[in-house]
């Protein structure tokens, strides 16, 4: 019985947790509740994933109002995959968060932070699970507004500026999105995504639909931080509390990519994306530029968190590149990289959180000889860094393999060159850390051996291990991504 309502519970549990945490006004209880909620969420997501594997797409009518009139929750190969990713990262980050937050945020704000965390999680899961275009907007706003607050809680004053910048950019993005949805509603008379896709086929007047496509694509690109709309991202990731950076780096942009995938291939794909419009070409080009330029910027950064943030912009390029290539392998690369990069980057931000806790800084110059002081943390950064580079035996390699394969199949040699260049640049910026941490002498007077506390190390290393594990066992990550890719592309025919 309760199993039938899993799709609703996935969203409702964190949604209810947030006000409960605020009412209790206790940082400790707030953390406990948020953690319990995130673990419940992971269980639900895994159950949903398994059910989709077994029985195919689940359609859940919210409040028993039948779609397309009521709001439909739709769990299919793609959304169940993203649900697992988001709830997995939340479930790993929250146990980590307590100590890290305690060190970085004044204690009277802890309960608010955990309430916002639960809301943000609720929003991200909601975006993923809903099958209704306007409902996506609502959840997008829930996750974004809570996200702005989370970032603003960073201890540095620059966090406020970054949050504000993100607020402006994010609001523009969300507004564009809702304008696009409005236009589509005008033309089709429905907000249900599946219904919209069917009805769009009968629409004669193309121009408003094209305008909708433009608004939605640009709006979502802002949220994705697709180059050159990425300028909010480095500040937001660098100055947010470490646990927040870790969670958001793995999930926020990924979920936005998911929505873009839905719209481009699930809705517009039928008529507009492939023939005529150079949308995929533009996407490919921007991704390629992101992969090279953002990596170059990362190479020059002096702050480890900002370095990782720019690396994220580049890695988002990998994701959108696969999308732009538009064949099964490219799409598989995109979807699997949602997962692989989510795991990798979250692991890195969590480890850096430990470094900040111990050294009080993440300026690269201040980290000389860090490997003697925090050997376990540093080695974790190296391993996760290898996954960023895409060395075989890591999750990142699985993505790169499919991207290169996809580019070769498409006969686009220049993209192969870009991928190679980008991974070499990644090697260069990862190795900046390696040289500083391992090959520079520690400043005199530095603490001898001071590893991050286990409460930070264990969750972080769980994800580091995942970076390696998913480089060998791809039966979940790759098979799930391929199912999703095939489903998306079949939706186009």
């Amino acid at each position, binding site marked *: 019985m309760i199993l039938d309502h899993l799709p609703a519970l996935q969203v409702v549990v964190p949604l209810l947790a947030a006000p409960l945490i605020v009412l209790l006004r206790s940082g400790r209880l707030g953390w406990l509740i948020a953690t319990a909620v995130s673990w419940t969420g992971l269980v639900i997501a895994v159950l949903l994933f398994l059910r989709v594997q077994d029985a195919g797409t689940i359609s859940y009518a919210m409040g028993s109002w039948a779609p397309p009139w009521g709001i439909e929750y739709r769990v299919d190969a793609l959304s169940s995959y993203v649900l697992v990713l988001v709830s997995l990262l939340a479930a790993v980050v929250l146990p980590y968060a307590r100590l890290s937050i305690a060190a970085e945020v004044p204690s009277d704000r802890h309960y608010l932070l955990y309430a916002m965390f639960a809301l943000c999680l609720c929003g991200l899961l909601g975006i993923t699970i809903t099958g209704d275009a306007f409902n996506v907007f609502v959840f997008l706003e829930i996750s974004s507004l809570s996200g702005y607050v989370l970032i603003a809680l960073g201890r540095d004053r620059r966090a406020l500026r970054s949050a504000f910048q993100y607020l402006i950019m994010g609001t523009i993005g969300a507004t564009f999105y809702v304008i696009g949805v409005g236009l589509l509603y005008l033309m089709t008379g429905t907000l249900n995504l599946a219904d919209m896709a069917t009805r769009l086929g009968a629409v004669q007047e193309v121009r408003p639909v094209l305008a909708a496509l433009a608004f939605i694509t640009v709006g979502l690109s802002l949220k994705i931080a697709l180059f050159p709309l990425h300028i909010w991202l480095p500040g937001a990731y660098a100055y947010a509390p470490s646990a927040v950076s870790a969670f958001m780096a793995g999930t926020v942009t990924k979920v936005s990519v998911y929505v873009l995938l839905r719209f481009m291939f699930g809705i517009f794909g039928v008529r507009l994306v492939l023939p005529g419009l150079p949308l995929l070409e533009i996407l490919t080009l921007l991704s390629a530029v992101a992969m090279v330029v953002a990596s170059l910027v990362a190479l020059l950064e002096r702050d480890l968190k900002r370095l990782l943030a720019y690396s994220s912009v580049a890695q988002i390029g990998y994701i959108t590149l696969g999308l732009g290539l538009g064949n099964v392998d490219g799409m598989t690369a995109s979807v699997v990289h949602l997962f692989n990069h989510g795991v990798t980057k979250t692991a890195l931000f969590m480890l850096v959180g430990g470094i900040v806790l111990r050294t009080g800084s993440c300026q690269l110059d201040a980290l000389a000889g860090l490997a003697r002081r925090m050997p376990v943390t540093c080695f974790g950064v190296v391993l996760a860094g290898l996954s960023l580079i895409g060395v*075989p035996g890591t999750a990142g390699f699985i993505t790169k393999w499919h991207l290169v394969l996809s580019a070769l199949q498409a006969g686009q040699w220049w993209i192969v060159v870009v991928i*190679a260049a980008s991974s070499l640049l990644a*090697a260069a910026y990862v190795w900046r850390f390696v040289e500083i941490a*391992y*090959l520079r*002498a520690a400043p005199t007077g530095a603490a001898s051996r001071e590893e991050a506390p286990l409460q930070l190390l264990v969750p972080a290393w769980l994800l580091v291990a995942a970076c390696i594990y998913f480089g060998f066992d791809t039966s979940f990550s790759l098979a799930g991504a391929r199912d999703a890719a095939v489903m998306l592309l079949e939706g186009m025919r």
Partner: protein
Amino acid sequence: MTAQNLMLLAMSTPVLGALGVALTQRSPNLRETLSFIAAGIALVCVLLLVPEVYAGGRPEIVLFEILPGAALAFRLEPLGMLFALVAAVLWPVSTLYSIGYMRGNDESHQTRFFACFALAIACTLGIAFSANLLTLFLFYEVLTLITYPLVTHHQDEEARKAGRVYLGFLLGSSLSLMLIAIIATWMMAGTIEFTPGGVLGADISNAAIGGLLALFIFGIGKAAVMPFHRWLPAAMVAPTPVSALLHAVAVVKAGVFSVVKVVIYIFGVERIAGLSSVDWLPFVTGFTIIAASVVALRSDNLKRRLAYSTISQLSYVVLAAALLTPLSIIGAALHIVSHAVGKITLFFAAGAIYTAAHKTKVSELDGIAKRMPWTMAAFTVGTLSLIGIPPAAGFYSKWYIVLGAAEGEHWMALAVLAASTLLNAAYFLPIIYAAYFREPVDDGHEHAHGEAPWPMVAAMVITATGVLALFFGMEFPLALARQLVSL
């Protein structure tokens, strides 16, 4: 024990050994004993595998699929057997040598050194046993990464710079060119399994094959074909045992081994013999052979001279493979063996000279044979092998390469081989002459010294004896190499 279990044990023993080394860092003697035990077990495993391969067996292990259709899998064939033998036989000898060297020079971070060393051997065996390009690539990359801490062992500015060059060239070439070559093979042939006769179908164009070959040759940066050779001289900042086992045997041989393996089992010798798109390769390797020899001739630093000599000798193997005749393929396989034994002896000697006399330059070696007779005797045997003079092992492999070139009527290759032999003699013989027949110059820096610590001398004597023994016992590697071309 089945052959499969032996292969797994051979690969896992060094890993366990590294773990043991890391755990026993407080007690150096116990730590070194563990290194020896691991090396011994690995050697026994590899030796026990020989009869099976000799009899035509090709033991195979499929662990699990990484990508659909490409598993982490191992299959032992004659070329891999030869390579594994080289690595497994020389590992215990270098361990003996390393102990003398690391203690004699009072090096720091010895635990890390021995642990990474053992892991590098595990990767080398993984490469030797790999059944497809994905498995090979995996171990190939890990080998690069695991040797990085060895190259940057001294952790100073020089080591940092050398480390950059090392990784830049090796990761750069493999992550860009080699990976693309592998994926392109996968796309064109539908498989990346090493298959006797190759996997490229008849529908693949001449130009595509030429392009693919270029991607492989330059992508496998460990083979050090010019212009991708710069990492090898850079790696010489490492302690000498690293230069000896890794940068004269394991790492560089992993490169040429991969090249030969790809030529035989991916391209297929008969499939590409005579194609116009692959006949550039002998010229590129010929150039590398000559150019590297000239640089070696002009290097006063002994290790640098040896490094450039290695670059030149590696291209012998690639050239032999590129000639695409049965005899030259045999020559390529044998040269992997003979050069390994010869070059490790030379590096051992260079390290002994550094440890005992603190000398690194060729010009400082006048009269040193009087003080270090064993070292210089071993050095002399090593040079004989590298020049290709009987009764040293190098003569044999060179002989087969020459036969192969003659069989294929490749006159350019013959000319290169002849010129290179003269150059080899030109950069090695003066060292020997100076060591034996010149009077020591007393410039005030001289200090009384004898031989290096005994473990180093013992290691040198063993490998030098090996060079001579191989000349008389070449029948056996030859039999394995013959299986490659089914002669």
